[in-house]
């Protein structure tokens, strides 16, 4: 297999670092310090819980913003700056370029998330709590966030292959929000007792990426064990769905007239 996607990925990561994307870590650090110092004074009995919930939610939200806003510009920026033409003149296929871009943003998100996780661990240590075995659930919740981000990035990249950044942002955000309500859409169909609506809502339910699957923040907060089967199934689900989106994006991008 060609090394081209890897080269594109490394360059995408470098570009993100050059664009000061990792500056969000300063915001995260301030948030964690603020929470660690002040929460104990404005609430009762939830210092540790808030640090975990706030930290993991912030990792998720910051990651989402990065995945969507950088993701929708991955292809568009290259076309806009006309750097894509010189790139495609080299022995690289369009799908390789897309996969490289996707992997590059994932690497950026991985590094960003890893650094935020270290910050979260620091905040937990500050509130005077020794680390225990149950804290593995926090790491699993963060892993689920990474899976979620991988899906959102794939969605953003898919839409950016055929529409403007503004529309791609709206589409990705729309799908994300609808995906968090996937279970409700199915329940709505079941509630109507109408077979046609039930069939329709079921199709929508299975087609939409189900972001509800990745929500383990509350479990992490309470130190509950996350079943290993869920970790495995979520990994497989993300891998399949992201692959599907990348194949579709590659097909569209390969046929796109770049003139």
């Amino acid at each position, binding site marked *: 297999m060609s090394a081209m996607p890897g080269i594109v990925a490394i360059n995408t990561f470098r570009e993100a670092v050059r664009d000061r994307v990792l500056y969000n870590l300063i915001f995260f650090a301030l948030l964690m310090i603020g929470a660690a110092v002040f929460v104990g004074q404005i609430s009762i009995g*939830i210092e540790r819980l808030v640090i975990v919930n706030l930290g993991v939610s912030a990792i998720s939200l910051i990651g989402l913003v990065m995945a969507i806003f950088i993701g929708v510009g991955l292809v568009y920026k290259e076309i806009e700056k006309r750097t894509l033409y010189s790139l495609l003149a080299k022995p690289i296929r369009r799908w390789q370029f897309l996969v490289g871009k996707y992997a590059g943003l994932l690497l950026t998100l991985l590094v960003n998330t890893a650094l935020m996780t270290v910050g979260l661990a620091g905040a937990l240590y500050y509130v005077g709590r020794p680390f225990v075995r149950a804290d593995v659930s926090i790491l699993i919740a963060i892993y689920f966030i990474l899976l979620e981000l991988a899906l959102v990035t794939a969605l953003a990249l898919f839409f950016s292959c055929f529409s403007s950044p503004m529309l791609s942002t709206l589409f990705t955000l729309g799908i994300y929000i609808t995906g968090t309500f996937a279970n409700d859409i199915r329940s709505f169909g079941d509630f109507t007792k109408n077979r046609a609506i039930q069939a329709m809502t079921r199709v929508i339910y299975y087609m939409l990426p189900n972001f509800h699957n990745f929500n383990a923040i509350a479990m992490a907060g309470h130190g509950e064990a996350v079943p290993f089967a869920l970790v495995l199934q979520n990994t497989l689900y993300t891998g399949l769905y992201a692959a599907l989106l990348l194949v579709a994006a590659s097909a569209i991008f390969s046929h796109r007239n770049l003139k």
Partner: protein
Amino acid sequence: MSGTSRAWTLRVALVGVPLMFIALAALQRRLDSQALSEAMQNEDLVLRSPSLVKKLSLGYDALLADIYWTRAVQYYGQRIGDAHTKFDSLGPLLDIATTLDPKLIVAYRFGAIFLSEPRAVGAGRADLAVNLVQKGIEANPDQWILNYDLGFLYYWRLKDYPKAAQVYAEGGKKPHAPLVMTLMAARVAQKGNDLETSRMIFLQLYESSRDKNVRKMAMRELRALKAQEDEMHLDEIIQDYTRRFGHYPVSTKEMVQAGMLPFEPVDSIGFPYVIGPDGKSHLNPDSPVEPDAEKPLQIPQINP
């Protein structure tokens, strides 16, 4: 732009920007004072439906639960001591927090205190507190501590001793529940004059425990229960005696002589009961039996 003009602009900015910030802060303070007084009068919660808030949380329900719990604490803290406050939004705030995160034990525990405390210190709504803790028990069936809180509410606030005893007994069967739960169940049943339940619990404790101290304590309580039961029975006979002879009996011996008792009754150690000037039977002052249900429960030191 000339150098003079640039310097002038910089000077204006250096002076003007801080001044404008000060003006903005002053204006905001006025706005805040109005908004705060309105909020204090109006106590409105924009979203009162816990399930709707959960749906709108987009997966960040755990964080939102912490925020709502903190809001509940702040809401309670701002109003505590005000005799005119009804704490109308306290119940809904706690309901939303615990729906968003059903495992937020602290919200059930402290929330129940905020709701059940009498007016000015709390909402004076023990009924709402009971509902909240019951919701917590349903969501966290393994948490004995919630049974402890619910038992306390029934015992202390609602004076429903049978219900309190039942709740304590259920909690005592949960994983890692301390012995005090079972003891409380027995003691509260005793307090509510449900001596049969109380005896059953202490007897079961005596028979099932291998710990010397626990068995000793259970035996002490069983003896006390027997004394309490004897005294209740004796008091009824004393009343009959008083009706018949027009005065209280001086001793149980006098009652035996009057043919109202077959023999002189003694406690479980063998000391005869005495009759006080109030016409009530009591344990013999020399008897080592400790009968009083009002005395604090002595939790035995359990040897590992």
